[in-house]
């Protein structure tokens, strides 16, 4: 299996779920715990501060089936962010957030994480282009 760490690209996709038997906090914390051999408490503190930064601490101890779509998106995004990859790719956000007016939601979430993200690409269908604010 090609490890994404080699390419330093993280993908946020409907097809890449959270680990079902871990809480949101553990899903995020597991990345520094595994990659940097960080103690769980320290990794969990990092994950917690990311969740607090997005006002999502209430979902920290929920597992995947108990999450709303927005919480699941945030959890997947933070799992990618904590790894500090060169590029984060959000693949078709409409699939991740089908009940949300997603361009402003994604924009606001990314803005709140601005100092923690190197570069973020949103991949969407061309017919959804009018949904996004002009850059």
């Amino acid at each position, binding site marked *: 299996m090609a490890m994404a760490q080699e390419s330093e690209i993280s993908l946020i996709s409907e097809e*890449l779920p959270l680990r079902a038997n871990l809480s949101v906090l553990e899903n995020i914390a597991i990345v520094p715990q595994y990659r940097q051999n960080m103690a769980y408490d320290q990794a969990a503190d990092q994950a917690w501060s990311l969740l607090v930064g997005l006002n999502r601490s209430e979902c920290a101890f929920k597992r995947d089936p108990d999450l709303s779509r927005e919480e699941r998106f945030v959890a997947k995004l933070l799992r990618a962010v904590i*790894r500090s990859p060169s590029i984060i790719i959000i693949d078709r956000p409409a699939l991740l957030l089908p009940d949300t007016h997603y361009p402003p939601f994604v924009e606001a979430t990314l803005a709140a994480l601005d100092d923690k993200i190197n570069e973020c690409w949103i991949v969407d269908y061309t017919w959804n282009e009018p949904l996004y604010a002009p850059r």
Partner: protein
Amino acid sequence: MPGMDPIIDALTRRGAAQLAWLRGWRGFGRFAAVAIVESLTPATYNSATRSVVQKQIYFTAWQILPTFTLFSAVLSFVLIQIVVDAARNYGFAQHALEASVRILVLEILPLLTALFVGLRSGAAINTEVALMVVHNEMKALADSGVDPMRFEFIPRVIGGVISVLALTAVASALALVLAYIAVYGFQVWSLSEFNRVMGNIFDIPAIALLWAKVLAFGLAVTVIPISEGLAAPPAKLFFVPISVLRGMVRLFFVLMLVEVISLVLKYI
């Protein structure tokens, strides 16, 4: 020839089934080799994998310890009483202790522990790994820079092996105490005689064989469910029960095979 078509179809189906069966064994062999090498590699052990090992030991051994201890104590007591009474009735009471310890500690308890752990944790591991494959969770972990082999699977094998070793040790120690009580009663004056008999039973080859057997049991109860779960096709949820069924059948045959091989090595 039109008349040959049903035969060709039947042979093709049979051949495909045989190939799938062989692929299952190949997957098991390959994963077992990787698991052994990875578990001996220091790089495998980090904060995340250690926590998975701890969780595995907790769920596989610690959580079931009271129930398992009680069950193995009752079973051991009943079997010891049967062996001791039979030995006395047939006039070889002096061999009652040796016979009961050989039957229980060397044969029944390790197999029973492996079956207990296999039915409880092996089935759960098989289901979880198959669901991971079906839901694409392995690719998601890899995308996060976490190697699923090192993070999810190898720690389970290590935890499973430690759990089987620990539970077998607990059950065996308890059986030795019960065997002493059944043969000598509640007194300590026969400890030297008891130690002499234990020395006869547990010589170096017997201990080595017991260790090898329990280690093989420990590997089997985790490696087979994981390799069978990994063989599940992605995005096909209906395959999960089939995967567990195959895993449990394969596990049963491997456990019996290990037991038979150990008996052959010991007694033939």
